[in-house]
């Protein structure tokens, strides 16, 4: 194995560790959003839809555009637009960029990073956040129905 191969693997491991650390931090906040969403008329397919999109897209902007459209179309203010939950979630996901910047800055001290790395970390952080959100939402909704 060449030094370059070794560096690439080490970077991947370091990235995964940094993202996993942040993911655990997001759990509580994601639970709060899930709790707010259970007070809306949203069902699990819509929340899962957002999670699925995040897992399959290669752009953060696809996630935020999706959310913007859902908030904008909710004229009854009963789903994504209820009590500003969609707007707050949009701001939350956008704000994860700061964490991505910090992770990229910390890793750049040891590894040579791709110019697109920070954006990719941001995308992965959004996925982590939404993964927690969807899980909590489904759990809370099931609890409510009992």
């Amino acid at each position, binding site marked *: 194995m060449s030094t370059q191969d070794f560096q690439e693997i080490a970077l991947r491991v370091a990235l995964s560790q940094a993202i996993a650390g942040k993911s655990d931090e997001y759990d509580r906040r994601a639970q709060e959003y899930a709790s707010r969403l259970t007070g809306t008329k949203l069902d699990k397919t819509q929340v899962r839809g957002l999670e699925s999109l995040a897992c399959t897209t*290669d*752009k*953060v*902007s*696809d996630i*935020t*555009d*999706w959310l*913007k*459209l859902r*908030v*904008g*179309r909710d*004229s009854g203010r009963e789903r994504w637009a209820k009590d500003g939950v969609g707007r707050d979630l949009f701001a939350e996901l956008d704000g994860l960029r700061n964490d991505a910047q910090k992770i990229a800055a910390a890793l750049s001290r040891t590894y040579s990073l791709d110019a*697109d790395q920070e*954006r990719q970390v941001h995308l992965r952080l959004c996925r982590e956040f939404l993964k927690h959100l969807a899980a909590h939402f489904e759990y809370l909704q099931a609890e409510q129905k009992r």
Partner: protein
Amino acid sequence: MNALEYRLIQKEKIAAWSDRWQSEAARFADSHRDLLPRRITNAQLYGLGNVVRSARRYADVEKFIKHQAEKAGRVGRLDVHGYWKDLETALGKLRGEAQTLLKNIPLPVEADSRQALDALHRELASLYVQHLVAHSVYWTPDEEEHKRRER
């Protein structure tokens, strides 16, 4: 570079471009906020989105936008005419962006560079419009909401 490698690298570059340009499209929407949703309706914006997504050549997008501008101009809706003209300019400028992206990705030997440029221009326009529509709808109360407020 083979066609598959080219497509993969291009996909990554386009994704990065799209995320970078989301704020630019949002600025365009914000600078025409006064026209939304009465003069430029959500239906028109969704229509634009459909045309851009289904267009095979950039010229089809341009034709649609020119037609919208002409229609508005004929009935004296100068502000709406201006909106479509501004959009035509904004999307037209993306050809330069497409050229820059293409410079950084060597085309596969068998590819036609003019066709590749047009396809990329159309794709960038589609992403720009996606951001534009989402941001326009996001900040604009729809007609129903307007009516409710008026009552």
